[in-house]
């Protein structure tokens, strides 16, 4: 009951100088909103990059252990045999939605007059493009289909198409090394021109059917297998579940292979962590300043309460509650502002310019995370409470006679 009374008195004290309290709450709210909007932008970026990475590789990548750890001496040295059997084993698990083979190859691609380096991938011509979603854009022509092996057809990156001056329907030749180390060449037809959004990749990108790639390398192996799950959250559990079913094969998660995602996350964590730290310091300064003014104004009242037998600790706690109330109000208001901004951006359809190394921009969204909002609210309230308590601790030690004589 006593605690409730102290809280009640403290809350009423915050309303004594409404203009100052409003300014404190507003500044705290702006700080909290900045943390939540900045953090929400980072979260949205993380989510997008997670999706891009997982859609590119699969939630789990299955390959031989050497494929992950060593460099091959000849193409497909560390490839997986009997992919069909492996696919059946993996699809028997209800968490697994797609099992997609990947055959990585490199070599030259030529239009007859000009040959350039290519980095290719043989894929499942149907399922591959449904899992890639928005992270592979068809610029012209058509995607691969079940008949693509007959053409045989390829998709090539937009920059590569520009370099070779080709368009859908054009004929090209792929040159590569077979698994035996011999040179091999096959004639292909351009079915479509695609963009990954990264010009450096689009300059070398070739996608073809698995059968075409296997024909070029003269192999029936695949380099690796992408396992797509019903839910990204199941990645770790499914990896553990699949391990005994895979024999000598190894697995990696999408995150272990997502070097760009990890680099961006490391960078953003530092940037937004630093921003949060600076804003936290500003909140401390704002609340400490407001409380210092309030305490100076109430010096005589502090003296009166001390004379009546209120302990310094009780007064410090009362001021700390005031600080926490101001911080919590600012934190709540900030969360509402951030939530509003998050919703407004969904409808505003604002585009960000392309990031460095990319050719396309992306929509500006800010994720609203209830967890981040709660952590921010708790942190801002705690910081405000501590700063108020520190200021009050100095003030309540003033001699009572001096405090009573304060004008």
């Amino acid at each position: 009951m006593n605690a409730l009374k102290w809280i009640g008195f403290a809350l009423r004290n915050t309303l004594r100088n409404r203009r100052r309290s409003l300014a404190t709450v507003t500044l705290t709210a702006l700080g909290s909103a900045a943390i939540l909007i900045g953090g929400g932008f980072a979260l949205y970026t993380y989510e997008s990059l997670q999706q891009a990475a997982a859609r590119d590789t699969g939630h789990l990548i299955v390959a031989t252990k050497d494929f992950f750890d060593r460099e091959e001496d000849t193409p497909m040295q560390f490839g997986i045999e009997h992919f069909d059997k492996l696919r059946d084993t993996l699809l028997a698990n209800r968490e697994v939605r797609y099992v997609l083979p990947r055959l990585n190859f490199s070599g030259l691609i030529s239009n007859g007059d000009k040959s350039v380096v290519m980095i290719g991938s043989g894929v499942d011509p149907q399922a591959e493009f449904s899992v890639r979603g928005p992270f592979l854009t068809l610029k012209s022509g058509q995607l691969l289909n079940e008949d693509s092996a007959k053409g045989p057809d390829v998709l090539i990156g937009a920059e590569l198409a520009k370099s070779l001056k080709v368009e859908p329907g054009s004929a090209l030749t792929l040159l590569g090394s077979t698994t035996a180390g011999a040179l091999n060449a096959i004639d292909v037809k351009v079915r479509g021109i695609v963009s990954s959004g990264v010009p450096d990749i689009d300059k070398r990108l070739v996608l073809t059917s698995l059968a075409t790639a296997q024909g070029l390398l003269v192999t029936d192996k695949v380099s690796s297998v992408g396992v797509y799950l019903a839910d990204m959250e199941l990645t770790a559990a499914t990896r553990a579940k699949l391990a005994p079913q895979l024999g000598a094969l190894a697995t990696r998660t999408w995150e272990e292979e997502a070097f760009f995602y990890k680099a961006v996350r490391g960078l953003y964590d530092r940037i937004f962590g630093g921003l949060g730290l600076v804003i936290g310091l500003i909140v401390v300064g704002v609340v400490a300043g407001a409380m210092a003014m309030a305490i100076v104004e109430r010096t005589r009242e502090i003296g009166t309460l001390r004379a009546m037998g209120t302990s310094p600790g009780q007064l410090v706690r009362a001021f700390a509650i005031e600080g926490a109330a101001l911080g919590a109000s600012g934190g709540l208001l900030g969360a509402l502002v951030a939530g509003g901004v998050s919703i407004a951006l969904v409808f505003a359809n604002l585009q960000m310019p392309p990031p460095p190394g990319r050719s396309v921009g992306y929509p500006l969204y800010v994720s609203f995370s209830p967890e981040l909002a709660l952590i921010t609210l708790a942190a801002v309230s705690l910081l405000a409470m501590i700063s108020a308590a520190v200021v009050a601790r100095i003030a309540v030690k003033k001699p009572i006679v001096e405090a009573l004589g304060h004008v």
Partner: protein
Amino acid sequence: MNTALRDNAPVVAMRGVSKSYRLGAVLVSALHAADVAVSRGEMVALTGPSGSGKSTLLHIAGLIDTADSGNYLLAGTATTQLDEARRTQLRRNAIGFIFQSFNLVPVMTVAENVEYPLFLDGISSSEARERVAAMLARVGLADRAKHRPDELSGGQRQRVAIARALVKQPRLLIADEPTANLDSHTADEVIAVIRELCHEAGTACLIATHDARLTAHCDRVLALRDGVLQ
């Protein structure tokens, strides 16, 4: 700590209490070897010109300041060696204060201001409510319980301050110029209330005042000049 007090023992027993302040390089004697005794239910006025040491004596008696030398027994408790926590506890339990400027807490209602000392003492809400209602009735402010101090006149505020000081029935009431900010009619009312409540509860009163009407109602008058009791 022995807070029990024999009926005939003084509530305030000061012996040779002195206090000096340093003003720059000069040491000013604010109170010199004061011997003061105030018994249960006794009203003692402290008079003297400004700077004579009235406030210093009141502050030491109210345990909000310490003496440089001498002994002070409050309700049988030797106070000289008490640490700040024990002095705070003794003020909370045994002393009520009335200030010249009322010093009510503006965010609290009249009833909450009066209840505050009981709240500090940890008295239950139901008992506190009863005692507050009874005290407000005694000072004629029962109908103002829910008002804020800034909605009251000066006389009403001082009556709230009296109720706040006396609601816990302290051993000692310290009043610093309680009628200085009041008109003569209101001052008479306030004096009557203080006198009545203190006599009823057996509270010893030490009142600093320039008001001749107030000294006329006191049992004894102590005159101070240049820090020395005359």
